[in-house]
C-alpha cells in the first residue's frame, strides 16, 4: 500500500472514529436522531465537544511527541519531556491548594494556573539550555527531567500537607481527561494547536536531517539552530495549552509517532500528517472506550491510552520490525 492510500485510510478511520464517539452511547445505543431533549443535549453539548477536544489534544500530543523524539534523537522522548506536564500540574496543584474556585472567559482558573506552571517550566528549562550553549538538546532533556522531579516533589508536599479535599482535587486533575461541556474549550485550544501543528509541519522536512546529526544537517543547508528553536517553541507552547486544558494525558505522544514510523516510515513530512490524524483519532477512540466500557463509571482516558495502545504497538512492532530497532 502506498503512502497516499495509507493517509486516506487513516483519515477515513478518523472520520468513522469521530462519528462513533459522537453517536454511540452506553450499551451500543446509537443517537443519530436523538429522541428526546436530554439525548439531544448529550450529543450536542457533551459528546461532540468532547470528541473534538479529544481529537485536537491527541493530534497536538502526537505531533509534539514526534518532534521531540527527532529533536532529542531519543525514542523515549514525549511531549512532557521538557517538564511542561509537571510544571502544569504544579501550577494546578498550587491553585487548588488555595481552595478557590473561579473562572474567566468560560475557562476554569485551574487551567490558567496550569498554563502558567507549564510556561514557567518551559522558560526555566530553555534558559538553562541557552546558558549551557546547548546544541544537542542534552541539557534541554536533562533540565526537563530535573524540573519534572522538582515539580512532582512539590506536588507531593502540597498533597501531603493539604486536607482531603485538596488531595482529591489534585488527584483528579492528575488523571487528566477530555470531558468538556460546550465548545468553549475546543474554541480556545484549536487555534493554538493549529498554529503549532502548522509550524511543525513546515519544518518537518528539515527534521529528517536534524534527527540524524546537527553537523550533517548543517552541511546540507539546514538552519539547525533556527529549526531547533521553532520545534521547541511550537511543541512546548502547544503542549502547555493542551495540558492546561486536559491535564496530563500520557502515552499518545510517545506511541503514536512510533506507530506512524512503522506504518508510513520515518520521513517527517509523511509522519507529521499521520500523527495529526492518527493521534487525534487514537485519543478520541480511547476516550470513547473509557466512556462506554463501564458506563456510567468512566475510565480516565490516560489509562485507556496505555491499555489499548501498548498491546497494539507491540503487535505492530513484532510484525514489522522483527529483530530491528525502531528508528526515529
Amino acid at each position, binding site marked *: 500500500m502506498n503512502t497516499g492510500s495509507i493517509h486516506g485510510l487513516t483519515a477515513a478511520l478518523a472520520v468513522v472514529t469521530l462519528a462513533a464517539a459522537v453517536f454511540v452511547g*452506553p450499551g451500543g445505543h446509537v443517537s443519530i436522531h436523538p429522541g428526546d431533549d*436530554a439525548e439531544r*443535549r*448529550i450529543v450536542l453539548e457533551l459528546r461532540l465537544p468532547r470528541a473534538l477536544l479529544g481529537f485536537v489534544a491527541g493530534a497536538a500530543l502526537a505531533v509534539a511527541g514526534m518532534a521531540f523524539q527527532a529533536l532529542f534523537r531519543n525514542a523515549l522522548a514525549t511531549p512532557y519531556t521538557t517538564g511542561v506536564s509537571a510544571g502544569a500540574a504544579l501550577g494546578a496543584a498550587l491553585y487548588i491548594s488555595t481552595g478557590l474556585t473561579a473562572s474567566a472567559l468560560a475557562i476554569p482558573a485551574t487551567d490558567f494556573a496550569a498554563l502558567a506552571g507549564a510556561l514557567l517550566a518551559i522558560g526555566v528549562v530553555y534558559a538553562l539550555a541557552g546558558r549551557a550553549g546547548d546544541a544537542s538538546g542534552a541539557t534541554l532533556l536533562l533540565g526537563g527531567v530535573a524540573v519534572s522531579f522538582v515539580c512532582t516533589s512539590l506536588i507531593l508536599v502540597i498533597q501531603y500537607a493539604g486536607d482531603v479535599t485538596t488531595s482529591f*482535587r489534585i488527584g483528579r486533575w492528575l488523571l487528566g481527561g477530555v470531558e468538556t*461541556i460546550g465548545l468553549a474549550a475546543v474554541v480556545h485550544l484549536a487555534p493554538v494547536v493549529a498554529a503549532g501543528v502548522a509550524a511543525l509541519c513546515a519544518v518537518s522536512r528539515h527534521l529528517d536531517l536534524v534527527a540524524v546529526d546537527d553537523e550533517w544537517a548543517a552541511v546540507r543547508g539546514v538552519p539547525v539552530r533556527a529549526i531547533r528553536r521553532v520545534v521547541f517553541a511550537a511543541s512546548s507552547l502547544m503542549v502547555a495549552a493542551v495540558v492546561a486544558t486536559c491535564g496530563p494525558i500520557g502515552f499518545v505522544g510517545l506511541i503514536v509517532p512510533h506507530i506512524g514510523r512503522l506504518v508510513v516510515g520515518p520521513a517527517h513530512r509523511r509522519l507529521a500528517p499521520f500523527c495529526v490524524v492518527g493521534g487525534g483519532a487514537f485519543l478520541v477512540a480511547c476516550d470513547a472506550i473509557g466512556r462506554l466500557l463501564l458506563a*456510567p463509571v468512566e475510565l480516565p482516558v490516560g489509562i485507556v491510552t496505555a491499555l489499548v495502545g501498548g498491546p497494539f504497538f507491540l503487535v505492530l512492532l513484532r510484525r514489522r520490525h522483527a529483530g530491528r530497532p525502531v528508528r526515529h
Partner: protein
Amino acid sequence: MRRRTVAALAALLLIGAQAARAQAPPQRIVSLAPSVTEVLFAVGLGPRVVGVTSYCRYPPAALALPRVGGYLTPSYEALLSASPDLAVILPEHADIAPKLAALRIPVLRLDHRRIDGILEGIVALGRRCGVEAAALELEGELRRRLARLAADSPAATRPRVLLCFGRTDDFRRLYASAPGTIHDDLLAAAGGRNALAAGNGSYPTLSLEGVLRLDPDAIVEFAPGRGDPAPLLRQWHALTALRAVRTGRVHVFTDEFLDVPGPRFIRFAETLARALRPEPAP
C-alpha cells in the same frame, strides 16, 4: 426595535421561570457522594433520588438506583439522562460544580468535612427540598446524642488517642488522622483527644519510631471492610513497648460505615466512646 423588546421580554420570562423552578422543591435529586445519599435517605428524600454514585451502598434502597458515575468522576451523560432538578455535591466537587452549572443543573453544596458541617447540611438540604421538619428532627436527635456523649466523658479523663487509618502489617508506615479532620471531631465527641499535634497535615504518615515516641494512652485503628479485626489486633499486641498495648487499650474496628461521613457519624462517635471509656475500678 419591537422585535428586540419582545426578545428581551421573552428572555426575562425565561429567567423568571427558571428562578421559580429553582426555588420550587426539587423532585429529581442526584447525589454525588455516599454521605450525601445517606443524608437524603435519612430525611425521607429517598423516593426523590434519581441518581447516586457507584460508591453509594447505604441504605440498601440506594443500591437499586441508577448510577451517575464515580465519586469524583461523574458521567455527565448519565447526569443529563437522569434529568435532575438538583445535584447535591461536596467541596471535593469544586471542579465539577462549574460543569453542572454549564449543564444548567441546580446545585446544593454540603460540607461533610466536620461534624458541624454535617449537621448544618442536614438542615440546609431539608430547607431546599421542603422537608425542613424531618431535617430538624434528625439534626436535633444527632445533637442530643452528641450532648449525651459529652456529658458522659468528663474533661479530666480524656485519653490521648492515636487514630490509625491504615498501615502496613509490619508498622513500617502508619497513616494517622490529625486535628482538623472529621475523625478528630468524632474523637473529641467520644471523649478523647488526639495524640498528634496540629500542623502536620490532615493524614500524616508515621513510622514505628514516631508511634513509639507518641506512646498514646489508647490506639484506635479503623480498617473498614477488613472483616475479622482479630489478626490486626494480634499485630498490635506484639508492640509491647507501647503503653496502650500493655494496658489493653488498642481497639480495631472494621465496620463499613466508618468511612462515610454521613448521619451515621453518631454511631462512629458512640462506638469510639464505648471503646475509650475508662474501665470501672475493680
